[in-house]
């Protein structure tokens, strides 16, 4: 369960988040949909406790991200915008490092790392250094790293960026798996079709605010558009926003 209430974040004169509020339930995939610069990454960074909001409240699993950041960090698996792997470490070492930082030790850690490498099909590259990985391989290793401690909450920042069709499908399977296991999955994207194909609920953000949220059907009726893409364009302020 993720609860966000009235989050405000400014970088100098630029307002990245302007009273953003939404919730994401357990056992659901919630899509944070918006144009580039709408504030999606900022919101995810605040939820993963690496950034502090100016005002407002954010809770993950009922825990305040500001008051108890360490507890929140143990409950989330975060996939940042760029994978952020260590180039000198192998795929397995990258995953094992985060497993260890999450407090997994010894045989238990090895079992988890083995399992996630198997699940994401990383066997072929597990001993290779991350230096030469393709974008798809990097994302998969970063996802494995985020999932290794079996967190109840997943924060994924544009995970399908730069992936081919097959890799995207495989990634969706993994995300659905986690949802079916009861996880709360928050997923950001600027691609409408992506969100429509995967998400149970959609939160459309524009200019740091939530403009529409609900199921795909609810979004369509709220905006009065039959087509979801039209609905998205209407929700973020029309074609004018692009000019």
């Amino acid at each position, binding site marked *: 369960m993720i609860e966000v209430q009235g989050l405000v974040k400014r970088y100098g004169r630029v307002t990245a988040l302007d009273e953003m509020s939404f919730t994401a339930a357990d056992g659901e995939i919630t899509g944070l949909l918006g144009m580039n610069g709408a504030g999606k990454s900022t919101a995810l960074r605040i939820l993963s*406790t690496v950034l502090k909001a100016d005002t407002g409240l954010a809770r993950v699993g009922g825990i305040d991200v500001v008051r108890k950041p360490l507890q929140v960090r*143990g409950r989330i698996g975060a996939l*940042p915008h760029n994978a*952020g792997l*260590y180039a000198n470490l192998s795929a397995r070492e990258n995953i094992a490092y985060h497993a260890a*930082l999450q407090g997994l030790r010894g045989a238990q850690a090895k079992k988890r790392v083995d399992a996630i490498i198997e699940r994401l099909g990383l066997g072929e590259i597990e001993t290779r250094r991350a230096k030469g990985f393709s974008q798809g391989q990097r994302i998969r290793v970063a996802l494995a790293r985020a999932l290794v401690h079996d967190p109840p909450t997943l924060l994924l920042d544009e995970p399908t960026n730069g992936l081919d069709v097959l890799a995207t499908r495989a990634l969706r399977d993994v995300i659905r798996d986690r949802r079916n296991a009861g996880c709360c999955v928050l997923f950001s994207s600027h691609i409408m079709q992506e969100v429509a194909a995967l998400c149970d609920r959609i939160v459309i953000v524009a200019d740091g605010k939530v403009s529409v949220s609900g199921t795909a059907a609810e979004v369509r009726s709220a905006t009065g558009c039959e087509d979801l893409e039209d609905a998205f364009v209407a929700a973020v302020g029309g074609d004018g926003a692009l000019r």
Partner: protein
Amino acid sequence: MRGLGVVYLKELRDALRDRRSVLTALLFAPLGMPLMSGGAIYLMVEERWQEATAPLSVPVVGGAEAPHLMAQLEADGIEPDHDTYADRASLAAAVKAGQVDAGVVIAEDFGAALQSGAPARVWVLHDSSQATAAVPSMRLKGIINDYGRTLGGGRLLLRGVNPALARPITTLEQDLSTPQGRSILLFGVMTYFLLFVTFMGGSQVAVDTTVGERERGSLEPLLAMPVSGGALVAGKLFATTTFMVIALAVCIATFAVATRWLPLAEAGMTANMGLANSVGIWLVVAPFALLAASVIKLVASFAKTTKEAWTYSSLCVLVPTLPIIYLQIKPMQASLPAMLVPSLSQHLLTTALVKGEDLVPMHVLASVVSTAAIAALLGAVAASRYRRGRLLS
């Protein structure tokens, strides 16, 4: 401090995989510095030693006027060369041009003046701005003055006067330095190299694990781990420190080995660079590594890019050398307040060890505690930068 060990081991492994940086930090710099300075010392000592004793050929003008003086020069290892220069002007020109280090001109009336008891003139021509001229001209002046004194003494004796009457005061010199103590003239600069190599040994790791990590985007997922900023910084600091103390050990070992080949005995020196003393120097300087690591770490946490961090950290390297340079100008005895100043205290303790003096336990304790305390303080400031956002934005 949960996670400290995990971060430490990961940073060590990550850094060790950068072969070139590791070789530069742990081998090339710590080996190269002592060998280069050792080579310079070797050449210097050999040169001085040879100049002071080696047979020397000196051009002389008008030597026929002073056959006894010429014989005296020859007896003292200086071969007068009567043929190359015919007059004073041509010899002076050669000295001025740097073709000759020093030359002797005997006045035309030398013989007559000597006979009549008037001062007989001898010129020693040299160019004091030429470093190579110093020793030959000093040797010449020494020999000629001695010769003159002997002649003067003879004259007084002939007249029934005790020559000692003409010398009412005798200056006697007693040099109380020990061969180890004199070695400080050469090894005083060693601490400078040790501190420099220590800095160099870990700066790559310090910068890489701070700004480098941010630039590569791996800092954000790291900050989302359930590990405190203090544990992250401490793990990274200790990894940096480990590299630094290894570089320091390699550097001291190289100094110790190089010392065996230096012609120190010829210069009247011995250096205490045996195994026990080398280990002692390592232990005394090691706390400085922790301080150096936290300085670079803190500086790097303020830098926006790796390049910027490198610029800052190369400036930082200069700071600990300031007290040592100050000491070269204004020497100071080891004291408790001096032991509270990092780099100064390490220098004084190292110097004492090389001189073969006993260390004062209180001094060692003060040096270790104050250096470690300042390191911890800077580390804590660096850790505060790891708290949300500051390093990411």
